[in-house]
Every structure is written in structure tokens, then in C-alpha cells.
């Protein structure tokens, strides 16, 4: 019997043993009898069209699967549908998928792939950000133009690709079941995204596709929408060949062709009067790559964050999604917010420097407060604890003394502070109008089954949800069962994204659990509940007006660095973080998320380099794409402030993405403090630092 006092008290994660002992089965570990393998045939040009493809003689038992085999629609179902399952002949990015070669022996498949002859007609690719396919703009207050006679300070900031670099590459196994049903088992975040995409590609009924989540070895957004493409290709093959087929990407293929964080260019302008910002203009561009997918939502989330953790009454915000002939970009933890928070945090720092005021005092004076209007004229309805959180962070890090000392010394030591929030849940009216999440709890005698589509990808959903239900029902956690989501058995509770799982899905599960508790004496029954949006949330997506998010989580990061004077390498010495996530359903799990998110945010800010040359990603393996190792990572101190949110279970708000948002600006500011130069782009590599030290001359 596990006696849970405060829900935040940590318990042993329920899947620790199977993972540690090597027993846990990820999709590559699964074998099926008669299993075939698939290799993907991809374009070797960046832009143009296929004039002809000549396949070698295909032996018995081997198959080519391409657009001709698609019985449904040759379009992957994502928010903006412009990605084909298999291209017919148009090529818009290097390595665009053309077909699958399927068969029992990889040696044979490998030989066959090498014998394929494709004749292309090449066209001039576009890499410059000139083709705007989505444009948004909105204003608040008096906008910006009316203030153009004031002192205007303007800077432009750039962010680059970031690769999710989950240690487990992408993959699926697909197999046929009775009566033409296709089942897919995969490393995924969103079982229903995959199911709905496959239904569309196969042109079949809802009950003819089944999607099961395998154990997932990390995802971070990289397995949010990309798997839908892979699943459609595989499902078409399974539908045609009627045998089990396994497709696992190896690291190089994964790195070259899957979605990455959108590169961005953000220009911020401030109208200054009496050493105050009286208006702000933000213009953001992001690079979607060759397909738009969910880039519009990434842009929206970025724009919604354009005033940072601050309240500015007059703003004009605009942004564009640009299409280029590069690998399509997609979801990555933070989803547009990391780009914008880097820009706005650096901007406030640079503005304060320019007008000659202390940047911390300056930021404190414009910090968002409860009941302030958000950037979209919604309201910050809940208490905002940022002033106390900042005090705590300053105290534990000795920030003020260090900042002063490092500013004066020639030692290349520096300390930086970032303030940020993350809007919890799907941006805008997605929860109410699109997802309409449903959950079920099934009671069978003394056991309760949690039936939701939420995926545990390491963030501990299995543990925290079983804990939640056990706590509400006041039963042993062993009586609560939560199996990997299988669309044949669970309703669509929405995708595992947007920091929505505990707050939104957990909220519905908590309501369901309360009903189960009331009816506990009944032997067996099912309770189903659906998402109910709090009445006060109203949002008009077209005009960017109202409450874009039901709740906000807040954070403070402080990072201390030392820059090597000879090599300009950055050593991160220590970090201190303070977060308000409402209420931790398991404190140890939340700290783990906090550490991991900050590690990724820091990597984004100073270490992880990815670029393309003529449409080809230059870093295609773990040797060339540098993520932090144990030796690179600094000790981290994290503090959680309780600030319960009325509609989250036990007051919980979103956790998953918050801790990635502040790392890059914090480390960039620390480097600025160390070298006494302004930083305008990330990652702040030693090469960039050298450029700055040489004042842009080489």
C-alpha cells in the first residue's frame, strides 16, 4: 500500500525496472514472424521534377510501393496539408521521399536501391526567405506607427535549426489484421494524429486502422507530426503487400530528413520616451522548409510571446512563414516560444543598455502582473509570482554581486538572467474547437484502467497519471492500470504536445476519477468525460484577440559562465532556476523535466550547430551534431513555487516545455556579461564570440 501524503511527494516511477533491466521493448526491439524490411528511395536533387524512374528487375517477394499504390489521398494529414505521402514527380527538397522498397533481405534491398536510375529535370531552388506563405499581424493599444516620432531602438535577432536528437531514432512496425485492417506500432507522441492520417491515405473506415504506441525513447516534438508521414508510407505498403513490415530510420537518415526547429529572424523595435518603452513592434520570420505543416501554429505561438514576460500597452506584431527548398521543419519543445524569448529577452537587455538604465530594474518595472492584458488583450487571470521568484533566484545565485564583479573584471566570467512564461495547452481555440479531448476510466472490480491517448515518452505520464487517479480514489497505485495507448481501446484525448497533458487531460481524468469514486460500490462500469473549456476563455484566432491560453507557467533562469580567452569556448559553471508550474504532481519527475529542458535550452543557446548548404543539412550524425555530454553539463539548482491553477488537477499547469524556454537567453546574456559585447544570434559558438571580440572583422 503506497500512502501518498502530498501529491507532489515523489514515488518510484512505475516503468523504471523494465527500462533499466533492458526488458523494455522499443519498436526496433520488436520482431514479428515473416517480417519484411523497408528502405526509402529519396530524391537526390533539391528542386525539380522526376522525368523518369527505372527500377531494376524486382525479385519475387520484393515490392516497390509508391504514389500509385495510394488508395486514399496522397496527402499527409497535418494542420496545413501540403505534404505528399509519396511525391508523384515534383521535388521540393533534398531527400524528399519517392517510394519504399520492401522485402525480406536487407542486403538485396540495399543492392536494389543502388540500382535505381532516376532522371531529373532540375530547377533553381529557393533558400532565401522570400516566399511568404502565411502572414499574421495584430495590434494592441495604439499599435506602433503613431509613436514613430519617438526615439526608436531597433535590433534584429537570429536563431538557427535545432535537432531534437532523441536517442531512439524514428520507426514503426506495420502489420495486417483481419479483413484488411492495418495496425501500426510506433515511436510516436500522438496515436490519433497517426490514425487519422493513415485513414486518409488508405481511404478506409475508422475501424480499419489501429495505432499502438511502443515504448518511446525520447521525442521532444520530433515525433509529433513527422511519424504521420512515415506511418502513411508504411500503411500503404502493408495494405498492398499484406505482410508485417518494419521500418526503422538509422541516425543519418533521421537527421537528414525529419523535422527540426524552425530557424527564425526577429526584428524588434521599441519607441522610447522618458526611458520607458511606450510601444513595441515585433516582426518575425520563420523558415518552414518545403512544406508548411504546422508552421502557422509555431509562428502564432512565437508572436503571442512577443512581449515576453512583460506588459507593454501598445504593440504591433507581425510575422511570416517562409517556404524554402529545405527539409520541412516542425514541432520541437517550445514550438516558436524559444525563438521569440531569445529575441525579446536580449532586446530588453540591449534597450536598457542603450538608454542607460539597469536592465533588471527596467524589467521588474514592466513585469506582467495579475489582471494585466496579454499581448492579445486576454487577461492574466491568475496570480503571477515572478517578483518573488526573481528574488529567490537572485538570492540563491548571488546574481547581483557577481554581475557587478564580472562586468568590471577582465576575467571573461559572466552571469545572465532570463524571465519567461509558457502558455499551457493548445494555442487558441484548439482545445475547444479541434481536439475536444475525451477520456475514459474503466472500473473492473478493484482495478481502474486509465484509457487516454497520452504518451509517456520519458516525461513520466504513466507514473503521474496513475498517481493522480490513485490519490483521488484513495487506493493503491497498483490497482490503477495505464497501458500504452492503443486506438482500439482509448478515446482521443488529444496529442501529447503543448504542455497540455497533465493540465488539460489530467484535469478531465480527475473529473472522471471523482465520479468513479462516487460510484465505487458498483462492480464494473466506464466513465467517459470530455473537455469543458472554462467559460471565460474566449479567443478569436483570425484577429488574435482574447485569451490565447487558459493558463501560463512562469520561469526564471540564471546561468553563470566562463569564456576561455584563448579558444573562446564557453564553460557553463552553474544554473539556478525557479519555476511556477501550479502544482507538481510528482516533484522528482518535475525536477527531471526541468533539468532536461534546461539542458536543451542551453544547448540551443551555445552549443548545438546545425545549418544547411544548398539545401543539404551539414550535420548528419551524432558526431557532427553536438549535444551536451555529462562533462559539459553544469550543476543545476531548481526551485518550484506552488501557485495552484483552479482548472488543473491539484492545481497543476503545464510543465514539459517551460524549462526549455529560458536557457538560450540566459546563457547568451551570461556570455555578453563575460565578453562585454552584444550577442544577436544563437548558438553563441566560439567562432561567433571570436567574431564579436574582433568587432566583426576577421
Amino acid at each position, binding site marked *: 500500500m503506497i500512502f501518498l501524503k502530498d501529491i507532489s511527494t*515523489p514515488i*518510484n*516511477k512505475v*516503468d*523504471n*525496472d*523494465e*527500462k*533499466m*533491466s*533492458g*526488458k*523494455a*521493448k*522499443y519498436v*526496433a*526491439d520488436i*520482431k514479428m514472424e515473416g517480417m519484411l524490411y523497408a528502405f526509402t528511395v529519396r530524391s537526390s536533387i533539391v528542386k525539380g521534377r522526376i522525368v523518369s524512374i527505372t527500377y531494376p528487375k524486382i525479385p519475387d517477394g520484393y515490392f516497390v510501393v509508391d504514389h500509385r499504390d495510394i488508395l486514399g489521398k496522397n496527402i499527409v494529414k497535418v494542420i496545413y496539408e501540403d505534404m505528399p505521402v509519396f511525391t508523384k514527380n515534383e521535388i521540393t527538397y533534398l531527400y524528399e521521399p519517392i517510394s519504399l522498397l520492401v522485402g525480406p533481405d536487407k542486403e538485396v534491398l540495399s543492392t536494389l536501391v543502388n540500382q535505381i536510375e532516376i532522371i531529373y529535370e532540375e530547377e533553381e531552388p529557393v533558400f532565401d526567405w522570400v516566399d511568404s506563405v502565411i502572414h499574421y499581424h495584430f495590434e494592441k493599444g495604439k499599435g506602433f506607427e503613431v509613436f514613430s516620432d519617438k526615439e526608436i531602438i531597433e535590433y534584429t535577432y537570429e536563431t538557427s535549426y535545432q535537432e*531534437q*536528437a*532523441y*536517442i*531512439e*531514432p524514428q520507426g514503426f512496425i506495420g502489420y495486417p489484421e483481419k479483413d484488411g485492417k492495418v495496425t501500426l506500432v510506433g515511436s510516436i507522441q500522438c496515436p490519433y494524429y497517426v490514425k487519422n492520417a493513415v485513414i486518409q491515405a488508405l481511404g478506409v473506415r475508422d475501424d480499419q486502422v489501429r495505432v499502438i504506441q511502443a*515504448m*518511446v*525513447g*525520447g*521525442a*521532444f516534438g520530433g515525433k509529433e507530426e513527422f511519424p504521420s508521414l512515415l506511418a502513411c508510407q508504411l500503411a500503404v505498403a502493408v495494405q498492398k503487400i499484406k505482410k508485417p513490415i518494419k521500418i526503422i530510420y*538509422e*541516425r*543519418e537518415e533521421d537527421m537528414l530528413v525529419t523535422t527540426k526547429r524552425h530557424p527564425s529572424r526577429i526584428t524588434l523595435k521599441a519607441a522610447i520616451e522618458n526611458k520607458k518603452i511606450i510601444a513595441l513592434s515585433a516582426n518575425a520570420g520563420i523558415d518552414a522548409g518545403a512544406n508548411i505543416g504546422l508552421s502557422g501554429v509555431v509562428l502564432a505561438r512565437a508572436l503571442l510571446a512577443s512581449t515576453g514576460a512583460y506588459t507593454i500597452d501598445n504593440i504591433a506584431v507581425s510575422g511570416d512563414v517562409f517556404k524554402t527548398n529545405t527539409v520541412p521543419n516542425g514541432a520541437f519543445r517550445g514550438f516558436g516560444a524559444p525563438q521569440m524569448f531569445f529575441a525579446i529577452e536580449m532586446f530588453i537587455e540591449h534597450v536598457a543598455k542603450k538608454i542607460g538604465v539597469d536592465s533588471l530594474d527596467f524589467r521588474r518595472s514592466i513585469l506582467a502582473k495579475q489582471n494585466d492584458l496579454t499581448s492579445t488583450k486576454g487577461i492574466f487571470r491568475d496570480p503571477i509570482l515572478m517578483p518573488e521568484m526573481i528574488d529567490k533566484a537572485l538570492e540563491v545565485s548571488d546574481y547581483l554581486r557577481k554581475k557587478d564583479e564580472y562586468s568590471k573584471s577582465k576575467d571573461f566570467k559572466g552571469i545572465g538572467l532570463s524571465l519567461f512564461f509558457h502558455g499551457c495547452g493548445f494555442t487558441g481555440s484548439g482545445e475547444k474547437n479541434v481536439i475536444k479531448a475525451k477520456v475514459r476510466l474503466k472500473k473492473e472490480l478493484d482495478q481502474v484502467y486509465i484509457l487516454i491517448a497520452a504518451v509517456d*515518452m*520519458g*516525461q*513520466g505520464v504513466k507514473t503521474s497519471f496513475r498517481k493522480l487517479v490513485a490519490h483521488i480514489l484513495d487506493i493503491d497505485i497498483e490497482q490503477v492500470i495505464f497501458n500504452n495507448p492503443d486506438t482500439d481501446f482509448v478515446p482521443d484525448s488529444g496529442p501529447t504536445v503543448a504542455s497540455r497533458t497533465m493540465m488539460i487531460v489530467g484535469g478531465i481524468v480527475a473529473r472522471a476519477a471523482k465520479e468513479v469514486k462516487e460510484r465505487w460500490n458498483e462492480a464494473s462500469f466506464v466513465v467517459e468525460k470530455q473537455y469543458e473549456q472554462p467559460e471565460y476563455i474566449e479567443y478569436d484566432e483570425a484577429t488574435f484577440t482574447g485569451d490565447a491560453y487558459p493558463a501560463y507557467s512562469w520561469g526564471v533562469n540564471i546561468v553563470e559562465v566562463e569564456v576561455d580567452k584563448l579558444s573562446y569556448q564557453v564553460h557553463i559553471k552553474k544554473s539556478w532556476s525557479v519555476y511556477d508550474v501550479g502544482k507538481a504532481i510528482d516533484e*522528482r*519527475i518535475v*525536477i*527531471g523535466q526541468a*533539468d*532536461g*529542458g*534546461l*539542458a*536543451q535550452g542551453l544547448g540551443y543557446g551555445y552549443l548545438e550547430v546545425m545549418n544547411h548548404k544548398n539545401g543539404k543539412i551539414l550535420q548528419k*550524425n*551524432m*558526431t557532427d551534431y553536438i*549535444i*551536451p*555530454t*555529462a*562533462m559539459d*553539463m553544469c*550543476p*543545476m539548482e531548481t526551485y518550484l513555487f506552488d501557485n495552484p491553477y483552479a482548472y488543473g488537477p491539484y492545481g497543476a499547469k503545464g510543465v514539459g516545455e517551460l524549462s526549455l524556454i529560458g536557457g538560450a537567453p540566459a546563457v547568451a546574456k551570461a556570455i555578453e556579461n563575460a565578453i562585454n559585447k552584444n550577442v544577436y544570434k544563437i548558438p553563441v559558438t566560439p567562432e561567433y564570440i571570436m567574431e564579436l571580440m574582433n568587432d566583426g572583422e576577421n
Partner: protein
Amino acid sequence: MAKISFVLNGKTVEFESDLNRRLLDVLRDDFNLTGPKEGCGEGECGACAVLMNHEIVNSCCTPLANVIGKSITTIEGFASTKRYVVIKDAFAKTGGVQCGFCTPGMIIATESLLNKNPHPTEYEIKIGLSGNLCRCTGYNLIVEAVKEAAKNGEGLW
């Protein structure tokens, strides 16, 4: 084809195989030991790590030919030892497991380290883990787990 013989998880195995194979594939395909994973295929991430003569090696860049006459321990073999129990309790206590994909490799690295150096400093722990990449945890909770295991080792190492 050649006759291969080595000790695998404490038992001698003998079989015929082409020599030009990666140890990782032999373990996963021939012996169904899926504990060692393929994360990168180039010796960078450590997810494929096993013990060879009690030292950590990356099985994705160890040729089968070099394994002849050696002793190989995968996580499955190590999981039946007393040392494993101490390590796994430590990882659970500190929260060092998230998605779990790097975890078998991290545990192998921990054993390889403590076997040679039962009381490592924090710096030595980080060197010991330097070839194992983790994307979920930010490493600190894993370093704490190794410290905890060393502390609770009590003569096991």
C-alpha cells in the same frame, strides 16, 4: 563463415557466423538481447554499450572477430547481479531514468567505472559517463545516481 566462441552473460556460446558483423547485431538478432540499442551506429551515443572483459565498449563498432575468446556482458546479464540492484535502486531514487533508451548504456558505464574505481570523484564520474549521451535528463540526476550507488556499494566494488 567461421566458428565463433565467447562467453555471453556468463555462458559459453559457440556458433557459426560470418566474421564481418557488428557485435550489436549479433546480440540483438542472434541472441534476442535487445537491451543494447542502436542510437547512432557510430560509437557516439553509448546506447549500444556492453561490457567486454568487464570494460565498457560500444558494440556497434566492435567487430565480432574481436570478441572471440572474450567475455561479454549485456544489461540483461548484468541485471542478475547484486551490483545491479544497488545501481538500479540508486537510479530510481535520484530520478535518473526518463525515456529509458540511454539507461542500459548508462548502467553499463556505471559498472565499468565502479569496477575499476569504487569511489570516484564527481569529475571521474563524468569522465566515466562521457561516452553516453542522454537527451532527457540533463545528466545531473544520473551523476547523482552513480554517487548514490558508490555510497551504497558497501564492499561490492
